[in-house]
């Protein structure tokens, strides 16, 4: 049997040299006169070990990592093609603690398969959800998704099935499925990983959404910062079209559905759904007032489902295994699994899919292994640049939508960025305002002007200028932005600012006399 070697093609693996490792393996194979198949799989999500290469053996897949090109000859000497021992060897991939503790429903195939092999996709239970969906009345599909308890994974947490039901019931000759893949939050990469590692699951989820709501056209709107995801997604769509998964007759049924990828142009605000729709239409990515809801008047004024990548990629398993199966995971009103992204200053960074319900402390210390720098954790930001900073005192917060909201935070897209004790929280608060000012679409005043004024006020506080008056002014400004902004950019930018101020007041105490004495 020809050995099979897996070298990830995920952007995170590429960024740390996966292509060079693949080239070194190819060169070593030919130098030694050996034969092996190299499969470029997605990432398993153990990013601190990337490039994490695997070899298929009689005892399952064996993992080695992080592999540098210089390690390759040594791996061959150690007999890694048959799972030989080596300092970089981690044993069977599926037994690695970081993977073993996970419940992978959405990411079941990511890192396991060749992302562009339909054969692999089918072999690992792919297309079963869509095969069921084409035989079901649309209302039954919508009910299944509603009953699963799936809530929008983009951040808002709105029940996906209810949104679909609105579109199903809306009159319109043309309806659309728009996949929001404009994953701009720092600390998040789950959408990118799925598009690069298992693109067919997103295609399948969108096709199911189309059949369920009567939409025949889908768009994936993603970022120009994700060139690899764009390329893989486009190739996967082409393959799906040729295989009859997309086109005038989805899997031979009476349903038509096709889709294409559209690329943004570096505007963070286009991750907001109405701004995204304007951008897709070829306009400035300015936020629209709601109502009308996109479900009734969305893309080109037609009824439109706008769902996040993670929501749509979770649909196939729900249809395949049933609503009850999915619903049984999780806690409270947060059902199913959530792909959590551990990022920033963390020892074991990567993707961890689990049922809702772990605490922040478990995620950061037990799973993430604490900081990469080895210093104490000072703060974590959950939910991207608009998410609150939580101190270790709040690490008992349970990962679910309501628990985070109750503590003045938000899950957002489930990215966690860890900071050690060298972080200056005033600087982080200032960055939140600066970022909002750079990325504001300019439509509403609280965001457009408030963010600029917020940056200025924070600069004054940093200089120690009338701190009490300026902190009061900042709090007032935050309140105005929260209550008066049209969308989440201006509305949530105060969260990191206020939380930094509440939990880390010492960082805002820049007494000029003390500074002068230093």
């Amino acid at each position, binding site marked *: 049997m020809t050995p099979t070697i897996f070298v990830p093609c995920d952007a995170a693996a590429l960024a740390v040299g996966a292509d060079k490792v693949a080239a070194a393996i190819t060169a070593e194979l030919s130098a030694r006169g050996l034969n092996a198949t190299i499969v470029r799989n997605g990432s398993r999500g153990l990013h601190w070990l990337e490039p994490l290469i695997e070899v298929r053996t009689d005892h399952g897949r064996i993992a080695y990592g992080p592999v540098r090109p210089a390690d390759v000859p040594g791996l061959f000497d150690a007999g890694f093609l048959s799972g030989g021992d080596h300092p970089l060897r981690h044993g069977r991939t599926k037994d690695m603690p970081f993977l073993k503790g996970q419940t992978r429903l959405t990411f079941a195939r990511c890192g396991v398969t060749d992302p562009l092999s339909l054969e692999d996709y089918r072999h690992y239970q792919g297309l079963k959800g869509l095969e069921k969906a084409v035989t079901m009345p649309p209302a039954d599909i919508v009910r299944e998704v509603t009953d699963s308890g799936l809530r929008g994974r983009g951040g808002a947490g709105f029940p996906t099935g209810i949104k679909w039901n609105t579109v199903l019931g809306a009159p319109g000759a043309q309806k659309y499925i728009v996949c929001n893949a404009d994953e701009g939050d*720092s600390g998040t990469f789950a959408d990118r990983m799925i598009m690069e590692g298992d693109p067919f699951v997103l295609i399948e989820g969108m096709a199911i959404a189309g059949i369920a709501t009567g939409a025949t056209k889908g768009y994936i709107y993603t970022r120009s910062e*994700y060139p690899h995801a764009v390329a893989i997604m486009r190739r996967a769509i082409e393959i799906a079209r040729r295989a009859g998964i997309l086109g005038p007759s989805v899997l031979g049924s009476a349903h038509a559905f096709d889709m294409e990828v559209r690329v943004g142009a570096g*505007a963070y605000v286009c991750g907001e759904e109405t701004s995204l729709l304007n951008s897709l239409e070829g306009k*400035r*990515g300015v936020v629209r007032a709601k109502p009308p809801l996109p479900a009734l008047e969305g893309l080109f004024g037609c009824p439109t489902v706008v769902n996040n990548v993670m929501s749509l990629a979770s649909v196939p398993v729900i249809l395949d295994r049933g609503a009850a199966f999915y619903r049984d995971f999780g806690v409270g009103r947060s059902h199913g699994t959530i792909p959590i992204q551990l990022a920033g*200053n963390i020892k074991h960074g*990567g993707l961890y899919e689990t049922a809702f319900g772990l605490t922040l402390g478990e995620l950061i210390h037990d799973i993430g292994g604490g900081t990469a720098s080895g210093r104490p954790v000072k703060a974590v930001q959950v939910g991207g*640049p608009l998410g609150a900073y939580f101190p270790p005192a709040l690490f008992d917060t349970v990962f679910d939508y309501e628990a985070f909201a109750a503590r003045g935070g938000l899950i957002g897209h489930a990215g966690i960025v860890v900071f050690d004790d060298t972080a200056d929280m005033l600087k982080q608060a200032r960055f939140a305002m600066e970022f909002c000012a750079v990325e504001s679409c300019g439509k509403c005043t609280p965001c457009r002007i408030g963010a600029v004024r917020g940056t200025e006020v924070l600069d004054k506080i940093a200089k120690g200028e009338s701190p009490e008056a300026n902190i009061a002014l900042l709090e007032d400004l935050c309140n105005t932005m929260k209550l008066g902004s049209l969308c989440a950019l201006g509305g949530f930018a105060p969260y990191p600012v206020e939380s930094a101020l509440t939990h880390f007041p010492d960082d805002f105490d820049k007494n000029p006399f003390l500074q002068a004495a230093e």
Partner: protein
Amino acid sequence: MDLQDSAQDITERTAEIVSRNAQLEGPLLPILHDVHHAFGCVPDAAIQPIADGLNLSRAEVHGVVSFYHDFRKSPAGRHTLKLCRAEACQSVGGDRLAEDVMQALGINWHETTPDGRITLEPVYCLGLCSCAPAAMMDDTLHGRLDAASVKDIVAEASR
């Protein structure tokens, strides 16, 4: 090629790009990406043919071009270094790294080195937040950067 020819060349090639994308729904962004790819920027001379092709005013096209960070008014240097400035990269020393790069190149954000080799642009997240600090030199991604590796990347591009 004098300026007149060049403007005419831009007009013709832009009109060709517009007609190639005309059947798309909402074709303006795909057109602007193609124009940007062809010229390294969205030149002023491209605005009129796009407006003509899509039955928009020049002001509307200009408004869209100016909204998006990606679309440049003039071409970048031979290489573009995009350094991530977002929180995950900040948490592992991204700010310091950016300062080092700016000092080494003698330029600030959005500027190009006097020899025209490298343009430095900020980027807010490359999705490499678990392998931070991260950067993209032209089309190549780099993660887990430190002072030494970023120096190598810049040196390679400067050759």
